[in-house]
């Protein structure tokens, strides 16, 4: 470490100690940057993959009202993913690289989304329990030490509240319905309770990164603290709904002023995280297909954007350099050399740029 780096580290530590925010162009330790990229990318991927389990029910929503709500919610998840990708890019990550890392399985997303949605009640349960757990996780992150991440979390938390409430309302409507509907809700809650508890990550004793992340102000609470908070908030809500949480050990502990509860199956958690959960392969295959099927749209939009430039430059360009090419066209040429399709779309430039296209094609 050089002298100036040592000074910068002192500045960095002082900013963290003041509970002030670190901003994108500030100096930061490489490990702080890497930890944030990993955490924010994982968070962004979770939002994007999280569209799938609920998207599964859009065409089968029981009413227009429910369909409009579900569409809005799934669109929000896409938006949340974009806020977070945008925050991650301020750390120097590239969007394209992040997408590739997701579909190649080199970065993770929350294991909860590897469970299937088998009934419409699951849409409600995901809103109530899964988004409820996400809120418990995310509210403290609004005060995380990295500015762009905290600002993204503030926007997300405002919108998550709608997600949780629509889920609770959906379930409470079903609970006032027929016996079959009530049974459907209970069965759904039974399936999602343990995976929801897993969302907070492994127990503190098995979470090696927690201590450093808390020292840096990236995380504000430990996994076990957040899990406890979630259970304590959820029990009275379950009572109001009239559902049973599937844990016989769940009791109020007068002394601790908190609920005692059993641990989820951490072996199952490890299996799902490693890629062998019920839907891991399906989720990634779907994301990959969406990305690859969208390639022609992205290419067409790029070609259209450049074509628009060309048309404008043909009308207005007057400046000409030594080689005789209008200045605007030289800019275009450099750009078109990067994408083969836009070159094909413009036959006139093809001859001029063919060598550079080959050079830039891996």
């Amino acid at each position, binding site marked *: 470490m050089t002298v100036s780096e040592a000074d910068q580290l002192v500045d960095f530590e002082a900013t963290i100690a003041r509970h002030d925010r670190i901003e994108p162009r500030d100096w930061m330790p490489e490990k702080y940057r890497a930890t944030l990229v990993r955490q924010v990318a994982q968070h962004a991927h979770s939002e994007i993959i999280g569209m799938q389990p609920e998207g599964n029910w859009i065409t089968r929503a029981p009413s227009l009202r429910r369909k409009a709500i579900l569409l809005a919610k799934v*669109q929000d998840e896409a*938006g949340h993913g974009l*806020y977070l990708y*945008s925050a991650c890019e*301020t750390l120097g990550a590239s*969007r394209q690289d992040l997408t590739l890392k997701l579909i190649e399985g080199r970065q993770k997303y929350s294991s909860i989304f590897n469970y299937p949605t088998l009934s419409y009640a699951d849409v409600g349960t995901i809103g109530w329990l899964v988004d409820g757990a996400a809120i418990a996780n995310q509210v403290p992150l609004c005060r995380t030490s990295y500015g762009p991440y905290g600002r*993204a979390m503030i926007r997300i938390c405002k919108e998550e509240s709608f997600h949780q409430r629509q889920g609770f309302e959906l379930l409470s409507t079903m609970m006032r319905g027929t016996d079959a509907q009530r049974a459907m809700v209970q069965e759904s809650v039974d399936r999602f309770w343990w995976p929801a508890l897993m969302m907070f990550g492994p127990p503190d004793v098995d979470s090696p990164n927690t201590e450093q992340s808390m020292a840096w102000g990236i995380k504000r609470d430990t996994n076990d603290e957040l899990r406890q908070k979630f259970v304590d908030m959820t029990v009275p809500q379950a009572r109001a709904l009239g559902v049973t949480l599937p844990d016989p050990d769940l009791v109020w502990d007068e002394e601790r002023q908190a609920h005692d509860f059993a641990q989820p199956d951490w072996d199952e958690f490890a299996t799902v995280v490693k890629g062998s959960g019920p839907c891991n392969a399906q989720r990634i295959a779907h994301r990959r297909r969406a990305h690859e099927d969208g390639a022609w749209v992205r290419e067409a939009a790029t070609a259209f*954007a450049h074509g628009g430039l060309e048309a404008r430059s043909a009308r207005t360009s007057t400046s000409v350099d030594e080689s005789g090419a209008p200045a605007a066209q030289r800019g275009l040429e450099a750009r078109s050399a990067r*994408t083969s399709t836009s070159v094909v779309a413009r036959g006139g430039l093809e001859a001029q740029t063919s060598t550079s296209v080959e050079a830039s*094609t891996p």
Partner: protein
Amino acid sequence: MSGVEQEWPLYEIFVRGKRGLNHVHVGSLHAADDEMALRHARDVYTRRNEGVSIWAVRADAVVASSPDEKDPLFAPAGDKVYRHPTFYAIPDDVPYM
């Protein structure tokens, strides 16, 4: 395919929350061109009436001060306390000031 694909340029998005307020930076997004940047900004940043006007600026067109130079850059304001109203002692019995 993905190795060849060129990433769309990055735009910084500013939203005016309502009339009478400044545009405020809300985040960034990728778009192929200016028009798409505005459309994406509407979908990503104003799904709940958060704005009445959007500015989209190519990120590579933004000029920014460097955090490393913040001390010398902002130093001229540091020792000019007389620019603040609280610098001036006014007797308590002088009204409206």
